[in-house]
Every structure is written in structure tokens, then in C-alpha cells.
């Protein structure tokens, strides 16, 4: 059984201007020790998805439907007390900006001990010992000294290492990392990503990595989820998605990268921009930007405009696109069967 099972999740924000549907029918699973990437542009709903896993959605946001099952238990209906046991103990989170996450008026040691004491009945001295041990695991030089330092005394890369150490404090089963390296430089980003990868493999921790950087996803994760306007539009093994994306949006996203074009030539841009979540187009949300949704007569296809695409299996990927469905269904039956049974 999967460790985390999210099915048909709907998250809405009740704003004065009307309801914003931030997540619509999002489903995915995560196995023990698996590394899953969630990719999308800003406004795609990937951070909301991450927050919802820990039930961290605050008013005016609320879970309108669907379920999140973690280790067999339903999180959406759990009491705050019980949720407290899951957060930190079993699922921990790493946020984008380490300076915002660390408390500036407490030393590193105080914050780590505080976290341990909140979850376990433990003596301060033992807690400090565990903290020290975790700092060693994330390769922080002279960890004894760091425990008594304040966050502002450390560099950005060092702070993010501390955040990772705190995330590991209670030996969680899952780490949710929301853009963990966006605020860092490339050389530091490479170090942090390598560290996360190493720790997840060593301790068999599952990772949900949320990022807009396809390069990072391709190097760290095994499976990838692509989101657009609050929906998952494609999911499958990372390698297959990067090398052979099926959904026109994923293709566009990969082709828009500068490394995919000949130097000096124009880049392959996707026209237009992501729709606002308060006002998403009917049918496939991507259809106004999609070149495949135009038929031979130069008109938008009716199904793209009106019908929300459901998932269709292509290779090992699930793709929500009318065009891909047609392609798959037009394949000879024998071919399709072969693909069904791996």
C-alpha cells in the first residue's frame, strides 16, 4: 500500500471576489522511500498541494473535497491534536526561504531542542545530543559552535542545511520540500540537492520536491507530476516525462528552456500566460495557449474547449489531453496491450 494517497483533492479559497479553485481533482500516490517531483509555473497550485498534505491550509482556504490518506489514516478529518503527531514526526517540511523559516531571536540549538521537546518527552541534554548528531549528518562544520549561533550569523546555504537537519530531527517518513533551493546560488543549490538526495536514500525517506526547475527535478526525482491551473495534467516516471513529454504544455515547458534551442536563435515560447485560478477557461485549461487544439480549419476543437480531459495512459505516463487520447486510441490494439502490461 502506498504511504501517501491523495485522491480527488479539491481546495478552494473563499475570497470576497468569489471562490478561487486552487486545486481541482488532484490525485497522486507516494510510496515509502520514493522521490516525487511536482512541477509547474507560479499559480499552478503546486505549493497549495504541498501545504494541503500537512493540512496547513489556513482560512480563507479550505478543503472542499477528496481525501488524503497517510499510512492508512485520513488526514482531512483529523483533529488538530492528532495532526500534531503526524506533522514533524512523520511528515516534515522544508520551505523556500531559510531566513523566514528560522526564528531570528532563538539560537539554532534552542530551535532544534524546542522541536524535539514538542514531540517527545526528552531531557534537554539528550535533545541537544540528537541535534548535534543531525547537524553532523548535514555536514555542518564545527556543529558544537553552530548550536549557540543565531540564524543571521550563517550564510544562506548553511541555513538551508540547518533547515534540513531540523526536518530530519524526528526521523520522518516523508519530507515535503517547497522550492528548497530557489533562493540559493547554483553552486550551493547543487550541494543542497545532492545532500537531500543522499539523506533520502540513506534513511529511506520519501521526498516530495516542489519546484519550477525541470533540471533539478530531472536529477533528484523518480516520478514527476506536472500541474497547470490547479490540475495535474501529466504524471509518470521523470525520465520519460523529460525525454518524451506527452502533454502539449509539458512539451512547451521543456522546449522553452534555453538549452533546447540553438544558441542565437529564437526560443520556442508558449504564447500567452497561465490563466488566473479565479477564472480558468472551460474544458482543458490549456486550450487557449495550445497549438494542437486548433483543427485543420483553424478553429479550436470543440472537445478541448468544452470537455475537461480525463487521464489516458500513454507509455508509463498518465496524460490529461484530448489529443493524446486520440493518438492512443488510434494505436493498434496489440500495441496498446503490450504497453498495458509492463
Amino acid at each position, binding site marked *: 500500500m502506498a504511504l501517501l494517497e491523495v485522491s480527488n483533492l479539491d481546495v478552494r479559497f473563499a475570497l470576497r471576489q468569489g471562490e478561487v479553485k486552487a486545486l481541482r481533482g488532484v490525485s497522486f500516490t507516494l510510496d515509502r522511500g520514493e522521490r516525487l517531483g511536482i512541477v509547474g*509555473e*507560479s499559480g499552478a497550485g503546486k505549493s497549495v498541494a504541498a501545504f494541503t498534505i500537512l493540512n496547513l491550509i489556513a482560512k480563507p482556504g479550505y478543503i472542499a473535497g477528496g481525501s488524503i490518506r497517510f499510512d492508512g489514516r485520513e488526514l482531512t478529518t483529523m483533529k488538530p491534536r492528532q495532526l500534531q503527531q503526524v506533522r514533524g514526526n512523520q511528515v516534515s517540511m522544508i520551505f523556500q526561504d531559510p531566513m523566514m523559516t528560522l526564528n531570528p531571536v532563538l539560537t539554532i540549538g534552542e530551535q532544534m531542542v524546542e522541536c524535539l521537546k514538542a514531540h517527545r518527552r526528552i531531557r534537554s541534554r539528550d535533545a541537544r545530543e540528537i541535534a548535534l548528531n543531525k547537524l553532523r549528518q548535514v555536514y555542518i562544520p564545527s556543529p558544537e559552535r553552530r548550536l549557540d549561533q543565531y540564524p543571521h550569523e550563517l*550564510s544562506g*546555504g*548553511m541555513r538551508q542545511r540547518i533547515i534540513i537537519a531540523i526536518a530530519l530531527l524526528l526521523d520522518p517518513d516523508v519530507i515535503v520540500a517547497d522550492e528548497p533551493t530557489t533562493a540559493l*546560488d*547554483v*553552486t*550551493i*543549490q*547543487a*550541494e543542497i*540537492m*545532492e545532500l537531500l538526495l543522499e539523506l533520502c536514500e540513506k534513511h529511506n525517506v520519501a521526498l516530495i520536491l516542489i519546484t*519550477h*526547475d*525541470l*533540471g*533539478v527535478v*530531472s*536529477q533528484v526525482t523518480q516520478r514527476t507530476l506536472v500541474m497547470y491551473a490547479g490540475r495535474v495534467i501529466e504524471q509518470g516516471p521523470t*525520465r520519460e516525462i*523529460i525525454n518524451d513529454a506527452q502533454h502539449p504544455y509539458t512539451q*512547451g*515547458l*521543456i522546449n*522553452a*528552456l*534555453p*538549452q533546447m*534551442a*540553438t*544558441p*542565437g*536563435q*529564437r*526560443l*520556442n*515560447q*508558449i*504564447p500567452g*500566460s*497561465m490563466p488566473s485560478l479565479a477564472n480558468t477557461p472551460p474544458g482543458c485549461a490549456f486550450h487557449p495557449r495550445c497549438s494542437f487544439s486548433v483543427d485543420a480549419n483553424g478553429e479550436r476543437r470543440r472537445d478541448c474547449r468544452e470537455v475537461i480531459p480525463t487521464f489516458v495512459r500513454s507509455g508509463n505516463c498518465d496524460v490529461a489531453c484530448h489529443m493524446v487520447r486520440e493518438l492512443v486510441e488510434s494505436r493498434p490494439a496489440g500495441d496498446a496491450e503490450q504497453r498495458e502490461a509492463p
Partner: protein
Amino acid sequence: MSEVMKPSQRQDDDSAQAGETLLQIRGLEKHFPLSGDFLEQLRFEGGKLKRRQEFVHAINGVDIDVKRGESLCVVGESGCGKSTVARMVMGLLSPSAGEIRYDGQRIDHLSPGQLLPYRRRMQMIFQNPYASLNPRMSIQQTLEEPLRFHHPDWNRERILEKIAEVMASVGIDPEWGKRFGHEFSGGQRQRIAIARALVVEPEFIVADEPISALDVSIQAQVLNLLMDAQEAHHLTYLFITHDLAVVEHFGTRVVVMYLGRVCEIAETRSLFDRPRHPYTQALLSAIPRLEDDGPDHIKLSGEVPTPVNLPSGCVFHGRCPHANERCRREIPRLIEAQGSQVACHGVEEGRI
């Protein structure tokens, strides 16, 4: 949008104008005082009052030439001084030492009045289009202001005509002129910021991380726009960025900076094919790639030192795997090495 540019065309353009230096930076330095005013600098030490001043050494002797018609990219990690160089070129900061020549004329010591004719020829695009557009001005007003300022003799029709033309060229409907900045998306705002730079018909544009705040699909749109504008108006770019993939695509030449000094200057192709400086090598190997071959990047030990107390000798020696005694002692100069310029003792001695 204009036609797809052929690579051969682009090269012809470059070679026709090659050699002519538009902007020359020599021995540029910038120090920011860290220790407050006179009274705050006084310390009581050993029974005596002593005055102690501390500085952030942001730029420490930078030489760069920008040739007419090229896109010179400046890359480096945060704190390496790349934005400070851009700001000094535009006259937004004054250098502590060194000189900046534009089209042969020294411009770094000019008064604001004397600088005015140059301001029309050089324009800047900033990183964050949410902050660089005045929220109280409509798009029309934003684009009108520089024109009225630089062309006081133009009449209203001429100004409106020019604005409509520039808005159309960046893909913003001229009908939207009455709207305000907040009504637009990030990509559209950056287009407006680019329109504001283009409206006075400059020949040189300094772009400080113009696409870093934008999403991937929007980045491609804005980069294409910048390349179209370059072709249409024969622009020269000084392009500041930390994104090496963009550099590889966009730049004709690249300057790699570290801690206020230049490590390497090279043609884009040769820099990516064969980086010489150990820092450039580490930087290039750190880019997350889409390809399957897993991360085999060069690990740097330690972190960027503080620019308050600069390391002696080569600023990179503390993290460099090839550093020796000479690197710790002596500051390396930029030397010619197979077409590129490298500041490294190891490359000079043939060790690396």
C-alpha cells in the same frame, strides 16, 4: 513577431562591427563604507581614541570591454558585484576608482547635466518589473515621461505615435495605455519595462537580471523580445544574470565574476566548451541538466568569503582545488589564453 533569425546573418552583423569598443571599463573599484559616520568610527583602544573604517569591497579592479552590437553577459553568484558594475556603468553609483568610457568619452566623473546626452543612448532594464514601474502612473504616462524629458521639442502627436509604435513592437496592445502596472502580469510588466527603455531609441541597454523573476514559459517570451529588439535596433547589451543556460543561449561573450574581480572573459561557445578558470569550471558543472548522466559536479569547499576582509592573493584560493603558495600571495592578472582571458596562476603556469 519578426522572422526567425538565421545564425549566419547574426554572425555577419557581429563581424561587420567587431572590434569597435562601445564601452570601456578600466580598473573599476567600488567600496561601500560599513562603519557609519565619523563618531561611529571612533574606538577606544589601549587608552587611546582610534578611528577605524571598514569597507565592503564590492568591486576590486574590473576591466571589461563591450563591443558594439554584442550581448555581453556578466555571470556570477550573489555578492560577486555584477549588479554593482551595471549600476556604475549607468551612473547610478559613482566608482571609488577607475574609469568608464562610453564611445571614447569618459563618463564616470560627469555631472548629471553633462551625463544627460548619454542617458538617452544608454537605458536600463531592472530585475523586478513589479518594483520598477511606478504604480501611480498609467502605462501611457510611464512611456511618455522619458520622451518628454529627452525630446522637449516633440509635439503631442509625435510622442503618441512613438509610444504606440513601441508598445506594438513589444506585444502590448496600444489600447491598454490607460491601464496601470498592477493590471498586468509579470511578463507583460517586463515588456512594458523594455518598452520604456526602447522608447528613447537607445543604442546600449544594461539589463540587470531581466528574466529572473519570471516563469519559464514567460522567460522565453521576454528573451525572444530582447533578441528581436536587438536585431531591429542594432542594440548592444550588457546582460547581468546568474542563469548560465540563458547565457549560453543569449550571450556572444561572457564575463565570469567572483568576489568583485573578473575570473574569465571568453566567447560564449569556447567558455562552455572549455572553461579555463577553476571557478568557471565549478560553476558550469553545477547547472542542473536535463540529461540522464547524473550529477558529477565539481564540489567547492567552503563558501564565498566576505567582501569586508578580502582574501590575499587570488580571491578564489580558499575554495580552489588547485591553489598553491603563489595563489595565496599574489593577485592574478587577466592573461590571454587561447582566445579567452583568464585570471589564474594555474592556467598561466600550465598546471590547469
